[in-house]
């Protein structure tokens, strides 16, 4: 798969590129059910960790499972019908309505789940996002909500899907490496 070189000539977003981006986002919006498997690294200052992540989205409902290395000790964040629950962490299941708040209160980790659900697919989450495009007209960097999202690698599918996404805001970092763009059973 093509790896965008780190020093990319990020041409200013112009009409054609933005139109192509909007078309890509419309195509993504038409697929409310998607999933991926990979690894996530989260840090806040010098505290943080990494693990395996499985993300399954069905419209607004989402099930995200994170698992530690080796023993794969896991915990899950599930939103169904607007209700959010966080299971498997020490101290038992937690309930709420905002996944980001629930996770932050339980672990101190800041993961902007709703926005990340768009960023990870190479899309803007809201209207105020600003994009710098890379060589093949694909997003290289996206700025939104105080976050800077770097697209380090894309796959060879059409439309191309991100493989490595590095998001950062102040001293909070969320990094994703996508292993498979659907969480079906792995082909041995």
């Amino acid at each position, binding site marked *: 798969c093509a790896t965008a070189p780190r020093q990319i000539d990020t041409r200013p977003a112009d009409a054609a590129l933005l139109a192509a981006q909007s078309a890509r986002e419309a195509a993504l919006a038409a697929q409310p059910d998607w999933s991926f*498997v990979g690894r996530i*690294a989260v840090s806040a200052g010098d505290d943080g960790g990494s693990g395996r992540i499985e993300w399954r989205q069905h419209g607004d409902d989402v099930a995200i499972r994170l698992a530690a290395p*080796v023993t794969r000790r896991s915990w899950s964040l599930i939103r169904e019908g607007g209700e959010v629950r966080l299971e498997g962490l020490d101290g038992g299941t937690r309930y709420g309505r905002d996944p980001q708040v629930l996770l932050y209160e339980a672990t101190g980790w800041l993961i902007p789940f709703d926005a990340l659900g768009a960023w990870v697919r190479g899309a803007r989450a809201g209207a105020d996002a600003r994009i710098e495009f890379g060589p093949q007209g694909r997003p290289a960097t996206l700025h939104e909500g105080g976050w800077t999202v770097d697209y380090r690698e894309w796959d060879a599918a059409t439309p191309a899907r991100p493989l490595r996404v590095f998001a950062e805001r102040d001293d909070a970092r969320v*990094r994703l490496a996508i*292993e498979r763009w659907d969480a079906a059973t792995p082909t041995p």
Partner: protein
Amino acid sequence: QDARARLDAFTQGLEGLDGRFHQRVFDADGRLTEESSGRVALSAPRQFRWEYERPFPQLIVADGDQVWIYDPDLEQVSVRPQSYEEQQSPLAALIDPGELDRQFRVSDGGSADGLHWVVLAPKKAENPQFTEARLGIDAGGLARMTIADPLGQKTEIAFQNWKRDPDFAAGTFHFEPPEDVDIVGQQIDRAEITPLRP
């Protein structure tokens, strides 16, 4: 000989182990969600190296004081005091037999799949790392380890071609973070060990 006696025979006087692992993870509905493999090395009393090679590279090194986790794709190294990590993996009990009885209630799981099984239940009641682990023993020693976690997920790790007491290359259980990575977690100096939340 029951399974525990076979396990003790395998770990008897063991100084180190080096072998291959093949890991499969099944979700609560029994669906295979991950398949990975790589190298595992252990050195008494508390050092181990767990190196995922496929489908992605990830290195975990416990040097005796700290556990380092290096994700090249994520350009991040996380480091934690080893005392916390140790309760996570029954593997550590392999090369520190006293640890087995200290941490787990050990019972005989009979034989199945051509293996003799030892069943481990964590003694630490609150927030156990797993509900049950099982060690499958054959003539070559530990052949399989299965771990069931509180969310019903099952991890199954098969081991192959163990080398007993190999002479490890220098640095096998040492980790130097590369230049351009983020280092997160707490690096401890020898004296002070502080537990960290997950």
